[in-house]
């Protein structure tokens, strides 16, 4: 490590921070105002001048049209936030880049150099497009190298990197806009993430929102509607002022039992307002949000078969965790095992810097690097941070022209308390040495080389450092990534928890033929992120297109798809077609979808209907597990109903939140439906028996009747054993035999023709369907349909089959699988 400096950045919703790690300590860099935290606020004035931080924050209420904050939840979307006076509209990552630039400038002022590389923290539940946007923000700010780390891991590293704390941890990170709850474990100095949970739309901002609503209502009761029309410019300004005042009051209530929400007199808007709020009142207002956050904690613990008693330490991260009410509730749950001496506001930035050290991400620019010394070049590979007290170090001497390899090497610790034995070099000039570390500190070593005669051979860079601390694995992937198949299933490439970087290849086969030289979207391979086995329940994050194939590819052609994900959240995708030598790498990355409000409204209505149906079946069938699965659905839909009017009013954040809530609600309904499958199947089995038994008895052939009896018996056995697969098999057979018998009933033809006539407008070729219906009707009128052996019935059946051909089948499946062309 030498004199390397490592930089970590916490890019928060409300505040951001930057820290440096020099191998011994991680320290936060203060900004120009001397504060460790820089508000994540950007202002652009009419001349295009950009202000970041506290100064910009002060303009939030006075000049909201040109000042933006709290855009983190919009990362990865294509939403541009307008700055009226400057006539500019910036993407969320461009705003984040401004904040990062400001932080890097603070480092330049403090340390004398502008960092070239940094680790940036992201919420654990950020999806790929959001991570991608964060990396892009770093690059836009001038960083050459960006590595991402999840915030809970950064927090855990910061809280426990000295490797003297073993056991299960919980990191409770409640920031301005997101909740991240992570369960971790330290065993023998190795830190491991067990699981994540959280909510990308729950944070201090929401509590502020509740407080704002309360304050606006209280002020209105006192003296009229202070805010007025929220869509107007004055309304937005008043709202912004009220929000700032509420946030200040909330912070004040962390120290005092009551605080004032004050709006100073403004000539433009008129009036001064003062409102008092007590801590108890705040606790009441924030209780639903705290309850929701604790519910996430309980679910996480239950999923991992842990109880609160087994959690040795709880690390609180984020400004809202300073709220006494929240701390009290968490303390109650965990018997008071809250980690002490931890600054929740800067813990993430410190942890990110420590992580940068552990992966050897040097922030010093090349110009600052010391000139290479004279001597034999040697490359030394070693862990930067390890919990192992006797790690291996591998080195390789690289002699230049005219230089010879040394005979042996010896590694010595700089403090003189340890030296290794002399180790001979291999013929390729390499050596493997096991060194000994001094516990919980940075250990510096030097490699000494000797020739055959025992004389020293000068090495160009024989020094290296290893820090003894907690051993951190590669950051695990928070949500599974895979590929959608044509049957709406998902082929998982990277399961949740896969360490990054990672690369996987799977073979697939095309479902459609592709003509050579086709220019259009010949075949699409959709890339999705999420845990559901059904593709349409996962989020689409990219689309790999196979365009311009050089050879005809018949349906069923093999294609090998490779996904590669690195630590900075970059996903590379490739499809190889064996035998043709062609590789396709044309990937369009999908941004977080900004569903229109109208679409969301329709989806909310249909989800409400679906929820009603599932709830009805759940209570009717009395399945306890399903009741539990849908317990949250009502709350999610109620939250969605509340977000809808805000989304309609143009709140982009509310729009994103609405989309996410609907996905979560439908996911819960999917789980409930899966649990209802057996009772449904059992009911279906009873229905089949009642429906088809008389049909087969009356119209079935002797062979069919015999087969039906066998299937009936087999179905009964399957029901006794609760074997769903076997029961489905036999029900299929019963349905088929029943339908075959039904088709012999002359009345069945009449029913089919009547149905087709009633739905003729849905046919793909209405004219053809009408002609066929006319023929069928004519035949019906003239032929005797009682005679089963008569040719007329056969012809009629043939006509009806042709009519069925004209009605579409399964357009839903095509849409659900994102129109996937592979299986």
């Amino acid at each position: 490590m030498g004199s390397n400096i490592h930089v970590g950045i916490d890019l928060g919703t409300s505040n951001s921070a930057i820290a440096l790690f020099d191998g011994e300590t991680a320290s936060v860099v203060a900004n120009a105002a001397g504060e460790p935290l820089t508000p994540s606020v950007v202002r652009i004035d009419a001349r295009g001048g950009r202000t970041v931080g506290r100064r910009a924050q002060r303009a939030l209420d006075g000049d909201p049209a040109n000042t933006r904050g709290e855009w983190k939840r919009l990362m990865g979307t294509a939403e541009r936030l307008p700055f009226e006076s400057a006539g500019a509209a910036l993407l969320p990552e461009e705003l984040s880049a401004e904040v990062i630039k400001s932080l890097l400038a603070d480092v330049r002022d403090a340390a004398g150099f502008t960092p070239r590389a940094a680790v940036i923290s992201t919420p654990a539940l950020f999806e790929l497009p959001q991570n991608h946007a964060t990396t892009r923000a770093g690059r836009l700010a001038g960083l050459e190298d960006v590595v991402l780390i999840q915030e809970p891991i950064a927090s855990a590293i910061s809280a426990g990197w000295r490797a003297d704390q073993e056991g299960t941890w919980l990191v409770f990170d409640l920031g301005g806009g997101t909740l991240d709850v992570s369960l971790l474990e330290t065993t023998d100095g190795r830190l491991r993430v067990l699981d994540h949970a959280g909510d990308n739309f729950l944070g201090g901002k929401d509590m502020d929102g509740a407080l704002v609503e309360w304050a606006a209502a209280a002020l209105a009761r006192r003296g009229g509607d202070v805010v007025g029309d929220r869509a107007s410019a004055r309304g937005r300004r008043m709202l912004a002022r009220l929000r700032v005042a509420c946030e200040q009051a909330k912070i004040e209530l962390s120290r005092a039992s009551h605080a004032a929400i004050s709006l100073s007199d403004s000539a433009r808007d008129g009036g001064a307002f003062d409102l008092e709020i007590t801590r108890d009142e705040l606790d009441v207002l924030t209780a639903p949000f705290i309850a929701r956050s604790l519910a996430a904690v309980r679910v996480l613990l239950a999923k991992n078969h842990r109880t609160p008693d087994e959690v040795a330490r709880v690390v609180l991260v984020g400004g809202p965790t300073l709220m006494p009410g929240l701390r009290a509730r968490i303390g109650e749950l965990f018997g008071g095992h809250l980690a002490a001496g931890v600054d929740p506001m800067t813990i993430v930035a410190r942890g990110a810097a420590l992580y940068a050290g552990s992966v050897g991400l040097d922030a010093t620019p090349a110009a600052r690097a010391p000139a290479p010394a004279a001597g034999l070049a040697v490359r030394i590979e070693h862990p930067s941070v390890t919990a192992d007290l006797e790690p291996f170090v591998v080195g390789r001497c690289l002699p230049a022209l005219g230089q010879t390899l040394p005979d042996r090497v010896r590694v010595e610790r700089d403090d003189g308390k340890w030296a290794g034995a002399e180790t001979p070099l291999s013929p390729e000039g390499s050596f493997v040495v096991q060194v000994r570390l001094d516990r919980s500190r940075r250990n510096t070593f030097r490699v000494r080389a000797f020739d055959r005669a025992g004389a020293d051979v000068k090495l160009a860079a024989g020094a290296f450092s290893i820090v003894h601390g907690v051993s951190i694995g590669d950051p695990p992937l928070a949500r599974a990534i895979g590929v959608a198949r044509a049957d709406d299933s998902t082929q998982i490439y990277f399961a949740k928890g896969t360490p990054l970087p990672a690369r996987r290849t799977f073979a697939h086969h095309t479902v459609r033929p592709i003509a050579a030289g086709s220019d259009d979207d010949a075949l699409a391979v959709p890339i999705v992120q999420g845990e559901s086995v059904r593709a349409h329940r996962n989020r689409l994050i990219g689309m790999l297109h196979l365009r311009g194939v050089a050879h005809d590819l018949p349906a069923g052609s093999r294609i090998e798809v490779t996904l590669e994900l690195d630590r900075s959240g970059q996903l590379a995708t490739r499809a190889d077609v064996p035998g043709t030598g062609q590789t396709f790498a044309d990937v369009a990355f999908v941004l977080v979808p900004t569903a229109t409000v109208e679409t969301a409204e329709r989806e909310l209505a249909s989800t409400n209907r679906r929820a009603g149906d599932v709830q009805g079946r759940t209570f009717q069938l009395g399945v306890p597990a399903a009741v539990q699965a849908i317990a949250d659905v009502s709350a999610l839909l109620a939250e969605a109903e509340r977000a809808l009017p805000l989304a309609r009013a143009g709140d982009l954040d509310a729009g994103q939140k609405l989309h996410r809530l609907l996905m979560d609600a439908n996911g819960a309904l999917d789980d409930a439906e899966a649990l209802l499958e057996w009772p449904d199947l059992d009911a279906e089995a009873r229905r089949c028996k009642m429906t088809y038994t008389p049909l087969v008895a009356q119209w079935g052939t002797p062979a069919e009747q015999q087969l039906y009896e066998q299937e009936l018996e087999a179905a009964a056995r399957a029901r006794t054993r609760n074997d769903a697969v076997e029961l489905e098999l036999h029900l299929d057979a019963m349905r088929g035999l029943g339908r075959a018998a039904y088709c012999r009933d002359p009345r069945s033809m009449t029913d089919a023709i009547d149905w087709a006539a009633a739905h003729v407008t849905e046919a793909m070729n209405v004219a053809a369907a009408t002609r066929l219906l006319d023929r069928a009707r004519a035949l019906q009128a003239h032929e005797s349909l009682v005679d089963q052996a008569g040719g007329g019935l056969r012809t009629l059946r043939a006509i009806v089959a042709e009519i069925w051909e004209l009605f579409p089948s399964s357009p839903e499946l095509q849409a659900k699988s994102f129109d996937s062309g592979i299986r």
Partner: protein
Amino acid sequence: MTADTDDVENLLRARLENPFLVLEVAPAAGGAEIERQGQRLLAELAAGLDGARRYPTPFGARARTAELVRAAIAELRDPARRLVHEWWAGGLEHAR
């Protein structure tokens, strides 16, 4: 059947990329030994040592990459996944 061939290939790869085989440690190895060996292999691969590039299996030597080593370390840190890998590796150890 076509999908089955892919499944068989994927299963075979999963078996032959058993973390204990990749890291060349015994199924009874402790966590510290696994970590140490993993870090050593990563360092050797980074240094370009030829000996680190392949690992033996009862079915022939296979290519070893840094990604495979990192994935192996992560797999064995999870006790539930270690249980399965240990069971398979233990059986293969008897075959040697």
